[in-house]
């Protein structure tokens, strides 16, 4: 369904061009003029899950949070934040996963879980559209993770001596290949996440984005010696770990005040 919409929008060729330059505002404008964002279908899927997905408890998201997400308006603007029921700072991914497993009674682990969590995250995020990001650091755990996120942002590590800041502060505005490097912190880019990635035909949450970026670090297990493509490459952090949430907290706090406009549309 999604693919059909995309293909008719873009003549199909786009689907097969897995790598491409970042779309310019004009290009995105063309898509907007066409009246449909290919991401709408995924958001719709999320809305469907929200109202109808049932697990072992017989409850749906809507049973607790109201029809059409009434009780979740503005919630995304404050995430990541500390939640007493799970005693953890959660981002939108982990918050939804916890609700699915604890209250709805659906196994949301692994790849299968992502297929439910990501559309739901997209849907719940849209409920905060137009509102300013307002991440507060009140709970001690929020403060601790924020500081950890900041440390990770600048931490140069791995066989490529990279850090987030190298590509997204120091080199922001330059190109890796034809890929323009953005400045998520300086330019408050969090406002358009989760984002639909045209080249992948997928909605990505910030967790997906951060895991993808860590892959480029060439991290390795020091006990096994040096980096090796086949034998010693620690490619990505697992989903939902505190390192990812810490980086999100750092970047989203920096985006405070920016108006949420999701899903973003990226190349």
């Amino acid at each position, binding site marked *: 369904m999604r693919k059909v919409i995309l293909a008719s929008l*873009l*003549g199909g*060729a*786009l689907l097969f*061009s897995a*790598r*491409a*330059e970042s*779309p*310019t505002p004009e*290009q995105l404008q*063309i898509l907007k003029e*066409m009246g449909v964002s290919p991401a709408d279908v995924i958001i719709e899927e999320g809305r469907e899950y929200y109202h109808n997905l049932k697990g072992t408890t017989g409850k749906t998201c809507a049973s607790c949070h109201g029809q059409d997400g009434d009780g979740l308006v503005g919630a995304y603007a404050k995430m990541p934040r500390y939640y007493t029921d799970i005693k953890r700072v959660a981002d939108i991914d982990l918050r939804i996963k916890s609700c699915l497993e604890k209250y709805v009674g659906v196994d949301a*682990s*692994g*790849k299968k879980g992502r297929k439910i969590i990501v559309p739901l995250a997209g849907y719940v995020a849209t409920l905060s559209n137009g509102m300013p990001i307002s991440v507060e650091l009140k709970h001690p755990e929020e403060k601790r993770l924020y500081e950890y996120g900041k440390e*990770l942002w*600048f*931490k*140069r*590590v791995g*066989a*490529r*001596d*990279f850090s987030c*800041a*190298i*590509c997204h*502060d*120091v*080199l922001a505005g*330059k*190109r*890796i*290949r*034809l*890929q323009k490097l953005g400045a998520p912190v300086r330019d408050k880019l969090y406002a358009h996440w989760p984002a639909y990635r*045209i080249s*992948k035909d997928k909605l990505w949450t910030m967790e*997906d984005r951060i*895991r*993808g970026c860590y*892959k*480029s670090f*060439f*991290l*390795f*297990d*020091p*006990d096994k010696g*040096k*980096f090796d*493509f086949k034998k010693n490459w*620690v490619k*990505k*952090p*697992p989903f939902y*770990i505190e*390192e990812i949430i810490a980086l999100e907290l750092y970047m989203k706090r920096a985006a405070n005040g920016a108006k949420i406009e999701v899903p973003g549309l990226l*190349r």
Partner: protein
Amino acid sequence: MKRGLLVALFASAGIIACQPASQAVKQEKQTLSAQAKTQEKVDKAQLFRKALNAQDKWQKACSNPTQIAPEGVDVAQFIKEMKETIKYPKDGKLVGDWKKGESLALLPKEYKALYGTKGGSRKGNCYACHCGDPRIIACGNIGPSLRGYGNKGIDPKLTYDRIYNSWAQVPCSTMFRFGYHGLLSPEEIAHIVGYLHDPESPINK
């Protein structure tokens, strides 16, 4: 019209360093009990943390908000220590075979596009950051252009050292330390030096 435009706009080729999930297809063994799965997750998180904590002391010195000026260490000492890590090929030849160097500098995709045959490597990935061979259009602008590099009269030993350990010349450079990290062997670096210096190399033609 719109359609043609979009296709042209989005389809331009380019390979990025920051690649997403696609090929990480992990086979989840269905026989694993829930407990074993949890254990596996804990192990993965621990492995990731171990890798993150494997930062060396020079990386640590470069991890401040400037990112490019070492902190808490003496710069001269930093450079001296980085120089001491540099190893040379056994035969002592610092300028190798430019054709082999080219194959190390180009990605398999790029190599195939130029020569129609198998070659190239993920090891160098030089064009992610540099331009050089004018036939390669999908090149980055993070480092200076290497076009005509061999005609500038630069000492090949300096080039060798720069690739082996850029931090011995520019502490905290964004160009990573290829030899130091074992991404390229001394012999491989010599071939890339050939690629940069040889008058026959497309870098200089």
